[in-house]
């Protein structure tokens, strides 16, 4: 889960709980405080009345009228006489609003001229109710706005803070060691990300160095490896011209030349493998794989002729490929070479294609091949057919490099290699 979503979840959870708890608590606390206030007021009123009553002269006539006030009523006490104060809530029907309204009532007994009177003090709760509701709603809205605002600010800040991080990730995604680049980052204020960028920069710089040194090593080796072979081949050819030359000498020299040629081929194969491993074939172009197949079939015509092998070319449509052209030529060339080499005399080779795959089928001189070891190095190397044992291995390596599929199956007594392009 993304960091910001984790944060959001926690925040919303916290905010939700806070609101769910605070608002009811607020409501009930305010309710309680207001009720207490009202009761205290009523009691104060009662006290005032009681003290006023005590100011009445003993022989003064007492009329209710003195105390005629809304919310205040005297009535002769009835038995049983309750001495203590009693609080209650009573619903009065109000004719103005045409509805019942709640009142807080304090009922108590007072003595005037030694006669008991029921004193009832009332205070309207209607305004208070609406007031409390209004206050709680106001506070609720303010809280909600506050929390939402805070959340929005935090979120937008987060997005900004993480921008450099995502930029770094984007650059890393595009980073390929074979592109031989060093990643540079602009200065950023967040220390942790700045440190991350510095480390990545050093890492890529080191990689580029290593890659460069490996490449130049391979290039040097390339030059050095071929020189002795070239000299050998050339000197042997000169030796061949010397006189007198016996048949035995000639045969020895001819064998040496064969071996030298093999050594040369082997060197080239190993070098190619090393270069592929080292990701040195970065440049690619768009070209027709079908055209390459046709070309190679022409080039191999002589070889096929020797074994009286008929090569049937049945390419449906044109397959365009984006890759290093030289590598693809090697790959297809090796498959074709294989089809001719591991074939019986007078056999056949069939090359067919579909929308994005080419199949090389050849009549088998032997039984089915083992898929598991087929593409390994030096599998199938035999002195008889003069191969290096690397042809298929190289073809597979090139196919893997571009994530093309190269499959083998044995069908109707034929070897079939299917090359699937993307």
């Amino acid at each position, binding site marked *: 889960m993304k960091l910001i979503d984790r944060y959001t979840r926690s925040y919303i959870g916290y905010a939700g709980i806070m609101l769910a708890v605070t608002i009811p608590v607020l409501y009930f606390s305010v309710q309680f405080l207001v009720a207490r206030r009202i009761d205290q007021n009523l009691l104060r009123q009662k006290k005032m009345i009681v003290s006023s009553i005590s100011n009445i002269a003993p022989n003064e006539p007492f009329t209710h009228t003195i105390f005629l006030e809304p919310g205040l009523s005297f009535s002769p006490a009835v038995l049983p006489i309750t001495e203590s104060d009693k609080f209650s809530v009573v619903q009065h029907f109000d004719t103005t609003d045409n509805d019942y309204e709640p009142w807080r009532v304090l009922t108590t007994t007072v003595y005037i001229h030694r006669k008991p009177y029921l004193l009832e003090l009332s205070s309207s709760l209607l305004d208070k109710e609406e007031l409390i509701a209004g206050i709680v709603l106001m506070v609720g809205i303010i809280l909600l706005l506050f929390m939402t605002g805070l959340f929005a600010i935090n979120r937008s800040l987060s997005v900004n803070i993480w921008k450099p991080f995502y930029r770094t990730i984007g650059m890393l995604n595009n980073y390929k060691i074979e592109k031989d680049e060093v990643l540079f980052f602009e200065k950023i204020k967040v220390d942790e990300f700045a440190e991350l960028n510095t480390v990545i920069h050093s890492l890529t710089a080191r990689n580029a160095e290593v890659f460069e040194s490996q490449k130049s090593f391979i290039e040097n080796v*390339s*030059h050095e490896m*071929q*020189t002795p*072979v*070239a*000299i*050998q*081949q*050339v*000197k042997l*050819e*000169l030796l*061949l*011209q010397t006189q007198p*030359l016996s*048949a035995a000498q*000639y*045969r020895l*020299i*001819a064998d040496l*030349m*064969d071996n*030298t*040629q*093999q050594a*040369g*081929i082997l060197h*080239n194969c190993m*070098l*190619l493998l090393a*270069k592929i491993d080292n990701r040195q074939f970065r440049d690619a172009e768009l070209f027709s794989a079908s055209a390459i197949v046709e070309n190679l079939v022409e*080039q*191999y015509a*002589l*070889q096929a*002729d*020797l074994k009286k092998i008929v090569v049937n070319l049945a390419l449906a449509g044109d397959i365009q490929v984006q890759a290093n052209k*030289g590598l693809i030529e090697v790959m297809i*060339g090796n498959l074709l*070479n294989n089809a001719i*080499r591991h074939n019986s005399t007078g056999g056949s080779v069939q090359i067919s294609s579909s929308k994005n795959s080419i199949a090389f089928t050849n009549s088998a001189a032997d039984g089915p091949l083992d898929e598991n070891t087929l593409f390994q190095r030096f599998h199938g190397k035999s002195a008889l*057919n*003069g*191969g*290096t044992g690397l042809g298929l291995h190289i073809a597979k390596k090139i196919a893997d490099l571009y994530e093309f599929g190269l499959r083998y199956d044995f069908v109707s007594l034929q070897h079939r290699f299917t090359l699937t392009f993307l």
Partner: protein
Amino acid sequence: MKILIIEDEPALSSSIAAYLKAEKFHCETADDLQTAASKVHAFDYDCILLDISLPDGNGLQLLKELKLNGKTDGVIIISAKSSLEEKINGLQLGADDYIAKPFYLSELSARIAAVIRRRKFNGAETLVLNELSINFAAKTAYVLGKPVYLTRTEYDLLLYMVVNKNRVLSKNALAACLSDIVTGGFNEFIYSHIKNLKKKLTAAGCSDYIKTMYGTGYKFEIDT
């Protein structure tokens, strides 16, 4: 004919020179860019063999210079087999041909002959060897003035042997002239093609110059 061999490996340059001397070529060598540059500026050569990987720089630099001075005719670049880019670059920069190491001297010799032919005679030369003559432009061989029908392969083989006359040519070298593909074990097909070639030539009245050497090599033996 003057040939300049620009090659830093002395064993190679001396071998090339030794082989070519017998063809009556006058050979000069240079083992680095600087020497090569001064020689090229001082003389005109019929053909220049240029090794790409020289100690003091890439041989292609010299090629660029030659092109700037309009002197790129007759350049054959020698490159390492595994470097396709070098070959493409070289040809794009105006080299006439390229040959990859390791190579056969006989093949190199054939390419030099082709380059000089193109340069000097626009390929319109006719080579006459006793009763055999070859018209390069028409890619036809004539015996006693009459054309002999040869397949492409047979013509290429004949040409190769004629250019390298009186040399012992191994099967591998002959195979190399026909196909860029270097594979072991496929060189037996040379035998049948040469057999057909000999038959056709002798049938047309040509002396049998093509000699089989020790069962596996060939030589075009002729007194000139």
